[in-house]
């Protein structure tokens, strides 16, 4: 079996996953005790209007027809309209408004850990059992143990009053930004705008990426420790490759392989964490939207968003397999000569 056949197989495996995940979502929304019609009506309890809404929403139809329509709509990407949160607004439009903020947040909260956690982890792995290693490792564990929402609360408070606390105003530093507000994502190509958007998202991204940073550090450390003892590293030394080249060429490249699923796995965790961080930092992103939709009983919005999340997660999985296939030449190889 070749590498690309392996990849294709992995992609095909995603089909039942999308299907099953979406089905579970349907079951929770429509079979569970939630009543979308009541949510639309609100607490007034007008029975006639209630019946009319049930009828118009197709809620009186047999369940399997509802299911078929639900699946058909989602799979053809007809995500419908919001019923409660922003009544009548199409889900696609809502995603267009809320989505970019989450993407911007997610992008930086993946990038920052990679550029901070990995180097720290590699450094610790190269110098195991030194003071620096202990500090980095312990710091990584503690940093990872901090709940996002709590860290976010602390950040917000400290930054909003940085002037009083440290005599340094974060809000006015470099570019003027608000702390608890959605980032302004217009005109990102202009340096000041970009800087502003980056600075506005930075605390949130740091918080959201905190667990990833700790993870990547730890796993980077063990991966380096492992490759350090590999026979090919000894071979490289035996043929006279200088120490630094052994590290950069022979150890790091191999140490990256186990990190691929870690990084992609975390990319996905960020979606869940975004609810809390977006709430604290008042970034009106997808997590926040989902939360609002849920507590308001906005069934179609919740369903469509969950479907998008499933697609996103499956997409990340595929990306992971793709990276694997690229980075590790052994993937999909069965060992037969």
């Amino acid at each position, binding site marked *: 079996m070749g590498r690309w056949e392996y990849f294709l197989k992995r992609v095909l495996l995603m089909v039942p996953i999308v299907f099953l995940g979406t089905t579970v979502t349907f079951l929770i929304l429509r079979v569970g005790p939630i009543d979308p019609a009541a949510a639309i009506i609100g607490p007034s309890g007008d029975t006639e209007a209630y019946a009319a809404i049930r009828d118009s929403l197709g809620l009186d139809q047999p369940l399997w027809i509802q299911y078929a329509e639900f699946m058909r709509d989602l799979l053809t990407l007809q995500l419908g309209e919001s019923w409660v949160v922003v009544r009548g607004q199409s889900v696609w439009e809502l995603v267009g408004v809320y989505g970019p903020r989450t993407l911007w947040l997610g992008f930086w909260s993946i990038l920052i850990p990679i550029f901070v956690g990995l180097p720290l982890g590699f450094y610790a792995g190269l110098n195991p059992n030194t003071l620096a290693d202990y500090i980095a490792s312990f710091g990584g564990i503690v940093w990872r143990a901090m709940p996002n929402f709590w860290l976010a609360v602390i950040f917000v408070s400290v930054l909003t009053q940085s002037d009083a606390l440290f005599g340094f105003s974060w809000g006015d530093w470099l570019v003027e930004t608000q702390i608890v507000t959605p980032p302004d994502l217009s005109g990102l190509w202009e340096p000041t705008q970009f800087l502003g958007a980056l600075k506005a998202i930075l605390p949130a991204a740091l918080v959201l990426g905190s667990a990833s940073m700790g993870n990547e550090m730890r796993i980077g450390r063990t991966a380096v420790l492992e490759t350090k003892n*590999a*026979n*090919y590293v*000894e*071979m*490289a*030394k*035996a*043929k*006279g*490759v*200088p*120490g630094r080249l052994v590290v950069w*060429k*022979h150890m790091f*490249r*191999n140490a990256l*392989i186990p990190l691929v699923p870690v990084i992609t796995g975390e990319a996905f965790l960020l979606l869940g964490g975004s609810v809390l961080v977006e709430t604290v930092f008042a970034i009106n992103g997808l997590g926040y939207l989902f939360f609002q939709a849920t507590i308001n009983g906005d069934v179609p919005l919740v369903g469509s968003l969950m479907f998008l999340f499933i697609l996103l997660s499956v997409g990340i999985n595929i990306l992971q397999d793709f990276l694997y296939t690229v*980075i*590790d*030449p*052994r993937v999909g*190889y069965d*060992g037969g*000569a």
Partner: protein
Amino acid sequence: MSRHARDDNVPLNADATSSRDLALEVENLRTVFHTEHEQIHAVDGISFNIRRGETVGLVGESGSGKSVTARSILGLIESPGEIDPASAIRFEGDNITEYTESEYESIRGDGIAMVFQDPLSTLNPVYTVGNQIKEALSLHQDLRGTAATERAIELLEEVGIPDAARRVTEYPHQFSGGMRQRAVIAMALACAPEVLICDEPTTALDVTIQAQIIDLLMDIQAERDLSILFITHDMGVIAEVADRVNVMYAGEIVESAPVEPLFAEPKHPYTRGLLRSIPSTQTSGDRLETIKGEVPTPNEPASSCRFAPRCPKSFEECSEVAPIPTAVGDDPDHDAACLLYPESMTTDEAVAHHRPADDGGEQ
């Protein structure tokens, strides 16, 4: 401890080979591993040498310290292992145990190259075979780019890999076991070393492939006048490849001799036992002679013969006196470390011969 510094029998005095003919000389090498509970004297005061163009065998069972010897020579011992500072490994006139890491880097590959046991794990899985050969070329021969690729292809052809132009672009896992070992050999040859250390190069391979690799190594040696240190546990292989053989047991060389007298007249009880326990030398169906017990872990300095507990000929003094290499047999190069020798002496005299001169008394 240092009484093993064998000034009286530094090998080959009799042979009048001057040290200029020696490619590599190992003298009183000791490598110790410090573990949590104990110190393991993996290599405990061994001395041997390799002449130019010669194949010297190092044979022993697992745990005898032969791989550690190879790694000690290349300076690949890392913490918790340590080479005793009194050890000397002479290569091109220098005692390389005193080298710094960067000085070592300049002779690794270039002067002394190594072929390891398991070719799959010694090749880096994420780089093509060509890349890894070219790495060695650029380090020691300053070849880069197309010139390096061409040279890599030549090397692969030289070690008998057909379709080398395609093979250089392939990854190690796409090679079969024998091909991988050929590639490792090509890599070792890339820098034209003078000494090649082969650490069980055929153990992981099937017999027909083993035969190919042995043929290849012998051809290369003849072509390039290489000196080879060949490490194996297989007496059959050693009989085939080696000119001289050192038999290791629990970190020590118990017998050393040119290959023919060794196999014809093994002197040390361990060598004898080892040869007799190999099935094929006898007709089928008989009971095999065995060596009772197991190989010990050398976890303290030798104060007795380490083989004594398993030795069919051991006597009381064997557990009190550590034997030193002593000339035995007709061949001047034939030494054994055993209290039974020299044969010309009575047992008591022999024991006295082996007993440390300086403190002469009982323990």
